[in-house]
């Protein structure tokens, strides 16, 4: 095999080199391979960033659920997607000491762009019957805390688009009875 190769090169009067076309094809293949690898790496990076955002969103939703559970039943009003300003004012939450407002709070993680969270609270009073419906109906409040933020990514046409991401936590509260 090698003898044939050397004989072929002697005939060509040139010693083993690549043609322009070969190099261009090789460079193109390499570039395509790199694009694939880079896409996967960037996806992983975005996944890690999304996990951090989700951790923070869950922590801030859990904070609010905890706060509502520890508040007087009457003070928890029937809010409809109330933002932090309304809830903090109604429950008299001290934003400097007690709990951080997350509305438009920018979370910066490393070199990634900041994320703006938005927390809303929805409360609806409901009546529930227990003991197979034989007991007196009991008034309860169904609480929904949502934390939403935007995630930017590229669409199929390579344009930057932002989509809404949201986490939801529910709880029920009732009046204390002795």
């Amino acid at each position: 095999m090698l003898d044939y190769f050397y004989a072929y090169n002697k005939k060509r009067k040139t010693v083993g080199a690549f043609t322009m076309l070969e190099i261009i094809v090789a460079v193109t293949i390499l570039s395509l391979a790199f694009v694939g690898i880079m896409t996967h790496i960037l996806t992983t990076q975005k996944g890690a960033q999304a996990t951090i955002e989700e951790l923070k969103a869950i922590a801030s939703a859990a904070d609010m659920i905890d706060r509502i559970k520890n508040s007087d039943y009457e003070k928890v009003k029937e809010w409809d997607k109330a933002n932090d300003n309304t809830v903090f004012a109604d429950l008299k939450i001290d934003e400097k000491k007690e709990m951080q407002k997350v509305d438009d709070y920018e979370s910066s993680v490393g070199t990634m762009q900041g994320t703006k969270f938005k927390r809303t609270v929805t409360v609806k009073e409901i009546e529930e019957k227990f003991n197979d419906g034989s007991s007196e109906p009991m008034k309860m409040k169904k609480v929904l805390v949502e934390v939403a933020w935007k995630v930017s990514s590229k669409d199929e046409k390579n344009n930057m688009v932002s989509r809404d991401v949201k986490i939801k936590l529910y709880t029920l509260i009732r009046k204390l009875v002795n």
Partner: protein
Amino acid sequence: MVEMLVVVVLVAIVLSASYQIFFSSYFFVRSSEEKLQNVHAVSVLLEGLRYELSSLPDINNLKDDFSNNPMNWVSEFAYEKQAYDEKGQQKTPTDISYKHDSQKNEVVKSIGTHGQAPTTQTFGRGRISSFQVLHNYDAKDPKYPVYIRVMIDTISDQKAKVHVEATIYPRLINRNLVLKTAM
């Protein structure tokens, strides 16, 4: 000659691009891995604290050096955990403490019963650079709701620092509406 020059230029471009791609991808992979490890370390610690502190039965169960210092950030605290058996009989109380080890970047939880050597459990896997806790309970002027704030920072290797703040409300204390000391 022209062919040669074009080839050299192309090879230089490809080499330079691949050098940059390899280094940036190395950074990206390391950064992603660090971020996920940091998130895991913080979430495990935070969920454990939320579970334990939200069921804290009494502020008096907190040890004096913590309970006597409201609105002060501390990196260690301890409390006495009361438990009851099925018949309502009180079990031997357990001493629980959390302490940040700044050398190892970990939070050490120590669980001990009276007269026995404590067992320890570590959180953070060497990633918690700062752990601080604060509470608002002032025995002279108790206010509701009683809360405990937690602030956790991780190490910032590969720019993957994670900072999380949370407020935990001890449910039983706040539901009793009157603190034991104020009764």
